[in-house]
Each structure stands twice: as C-alpha cells, then as structure tokens.
C-alpha cells in the first residue's frame, strides 16, 4: 500500500492536466503570497536599510568570496540542520516538519507530473507516504507540546491562539488527510471525503501565505545570512565581541576576569538556562 501511487486511482476521474494545473496554481499562490507579504511588511526595504546601517559601523568590508562562504554556511547550518534553535526538542521537531514537508511536496509534484496514470512509480509513493508521516510526527509533536504558547504561556493544546496557528494547522491537517485518503483507497464515499479534505487543507495552507507564517521559510535564511555578515564585518549590530577568556590580551584589558576567575576559567555550565522556559 505504501508503494502504490495514490494519484493513479484519482487519475481515472480527474485528468492529470487538472492535477498538474492545481500544483502550478499552488506554486503561484505561494509566490504571490510571499511577494504580497514582503510588500506589506516592507521586508526588502528593512533588509536593505539594515545592511546600509551595518555598512556604516563595519570595521572591514567582506570580499565576494567571504560572502559566498557565509551563504554556504547559512545553507548548511541554519537551513539544512535548523541550527538556529538552541533547544534540542524544538530543533528535532522542526527538522522532521521541514524535511517531511519538502519530501511530501516534492514527491507529490513528481507523482503528478511524472506518474499520474501509472500504478507503480518506483520509490516515489514510498517517499510520499514517508514525507507525510514525518510531517505528521513533527507537526503533532509541535502542536501538543512545543508550540510556544503551550510551552511557555500555559495555553492548552486545544486552544487556538490566533492567526499564527494557520500555518501549523494546515501543516498538520494536510498530511493527515492525505494519509487517510491513501489508506482508504477503494472505499468510495469515505475516500472521496478524505480527498476533498486533503485538497481543502492544502489549498488553505498554500493560499494563506499572506496571512500565515508560511513565508518564514524564505525570510529566515535571509535573516540568518545577514546576521552572519554583520558578525563577520565587525558591526555586529552594536553587540559586544566574543572574548576568549584565556587570551592574555583580554586579561590585560579586563583584569577583573583573571583575578576572580583565574587564567583558564572552566565551563560554568547552564545556570538559568538549565531549565526550559516553562515557568508559567
């Protein structure tokens, strides 16, 4: 069952062209939604003004090669391994959600554009189900335990807490109904119902880009890259430097540090950060 192409049965009463048109429509909705969101939030303007301000305070200019290397680092760390998250369980949940979403969407596109009228499609149906399962796992885990309203502000998991929930609700319901649809192949009305809900949820997810958090997947890497640049060029947004506490130059400049901590202070361990921020 995991290796049967779910879109094959669908192709008997919905033509592949319609399915492909739907995918293209969703892509367009994301692009339009992101552009409208960027215009509304003035993100591009903010980004470039920030860059100009950093340039004024910069202690050195970055070469093209350095910038490229920082971009690669951003992709490898912040994008591929979600390294921005300091709390482990949030990071793991995000990785499942992110990769699950990418695999699910990619395999949907491949199945619809490449294998719409074929029952067997190699590894792609397996990937499709795998992506949906990963997305469900990460999404439900996030919804019940990790959502910051639940974790840090005492909101119950069954309370919706505003427009910010559209994205995660869409991300959870879409693969849930997709899996239910695939599992009930051949059951007639129930199967149709799940398919209809699947399409409804996915349309809401991709259509609500302007109102939801969807576009963060484009903004966050840009912000992470920009942060790396300002750290590298010395402006650091006015933040103090990171000091090496064993460096004699630091000892000379700040004599209280070696006086009270010694010349080679140990790792002090987590103090306030030892507990997760859940003291509501």
């Amino acid at each position, binding site marked *: 069952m995991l290796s049967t192409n779910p879109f094959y049965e669908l192709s008997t009463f919905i033509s592949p062209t319609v399915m492909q048109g739907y995918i293209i429509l969703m892509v367009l909705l994301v692009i339009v939604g992101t552009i409208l969101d960027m215009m509304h939030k003035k993100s591009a303007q*903010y980004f470039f003004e920030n860059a100009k301000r950093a340039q004024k305070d910069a202690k050195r200019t970055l070469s093209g090669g350095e910038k490229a290397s920082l971009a690669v680092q951003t992709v490898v760390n912040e994008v591929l391994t979600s390294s*921005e*998250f*300091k*709390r482990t369980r*949030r990071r793991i949940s995000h990785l499942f959600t992110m990769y699950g979403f990418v695999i699910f969407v990619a395999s949907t596109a491949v199945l619809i554009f490449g294998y719409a009228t074929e029952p067997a499609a190699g590894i792609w149906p397996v990937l499709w189900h795998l992506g949906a399962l990963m997305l469900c796992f990460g999404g439900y885990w996030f919804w019940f335990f990790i959502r*910051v*309203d639940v*974790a*840090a*502000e005492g909101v119950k998991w069954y309370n919706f*807490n*505003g*427009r*910010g929930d559209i994205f995660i609700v869409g991300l959870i319901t879409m693969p849930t109904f997709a899996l239910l649809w695939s599992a009930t192949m051949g059951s007639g009305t129930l199967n149709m119902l799940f398919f209809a809900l699947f399409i409804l949820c996915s349309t809401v997810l991709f259509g609500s880009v302007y109102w939801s*958090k969807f576009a963060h997947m484009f*903004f966050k890497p840009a*912000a992470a890259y*920009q*942060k790396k640049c300002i750290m590298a060029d010395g402006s650091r*947004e*006015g*933040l*103090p*430097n*990171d*000091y090496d*506490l064993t460096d004699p130059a*630091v000892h000379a*400049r*700040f004599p*209280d*540090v070696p006086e*009270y*901590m010694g010349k080679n*202070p*140990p*790792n*002090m*361990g*987590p*103090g*306030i*950060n*030892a507990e997760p*921020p*859940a*003291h*509501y």
Partner: protein
Amino acid sequence: MPTFVYMTRCDGCGQCVDICPSDIMHIDKVTRRAYNIEPNMCWECYSCVKACPHQAIDCRGYADFAPLGHSVRVKRDEEKGVIAWRIKFRNGKKDMDLLAPITTKPWGTCIPQLSDVPAPTQQQRDSQLLFNEPKYIRMDDGDIHTLKSNGLKLIEGVEGYS
C-alpha cells in the same frame, strides 16, 4: 520605548517571556514572536535582553535620561561566566567595551544540599546561630556576637533582650 524585539532575529523560544519580572514580554498571536506588551511598565532591568539566546532584544532608554542615538547592548554568557557590555555614546565619540565575571564557580556546584549534611544538634537548635555560624562569621573560631560578649547593655525604652 524600553525593550523591543527585532522580529527577524527572534525565533519565538519564550526565554524572555519566562524571565520577565513584570510579566510584560509575551508572544504575539499573529507572528509568533516575542514583544513587549506594556512599555510603560518596563523597568529596563535587561533580564529579557540577557536571556535571549539570539540577542534579539534591545532597549531604548527613556528619552529624558538617554536621548535617542545611543546604543547599549549586552551579552550574558552563562557557560563562560561573564557578561559583556558595549556602550556607544550618541555623539559618536565613545564606544566602550566592558567585560566582567558573573560567577567564580560553575553554577550550583558549590551550593550544599542541606538535606544531606549532618542534622543540627539540639544545642544548635537552642542557640542563636544560623546554619553556617559561628565559623562563617569570621572564618575562624570566634563566636557570634551577643550583647554580653560585646559589653553592651540595652537602655530603658527598648524591648527586653538578653
């Protein structure tokens, strides 16, 4: 406007929400990022600024005391045990770096677990000493001060005390 959050740097982790003594840092329902819900009530204690793992929070001092154009940024590193400040004056003439220790020993390791130490004797309970006295008063064998030991007498008008 006291503390404010750079939304591009915030990832909605909730550390600032947790630590604020005035309970005025909360998560915005739409963007899922932190923000200061009541700038009037902000003491500018910098607890949220220090707690943020991404240094996404900054503080603009009240204008009667710190006119616009200055920059005060801080990075508190618990694992290193230091706190670093960078203060820029608005006339552009001064850019101060400060670094100070915040602890001399790893957090929590040198605090005794008092339920595991030997129990207080009846004599200790009857005395006027705290748990680590008299040794910790002078770090020697001297005893705790009493009126008698210091040669003092309470004069009339004050509550009786021996």
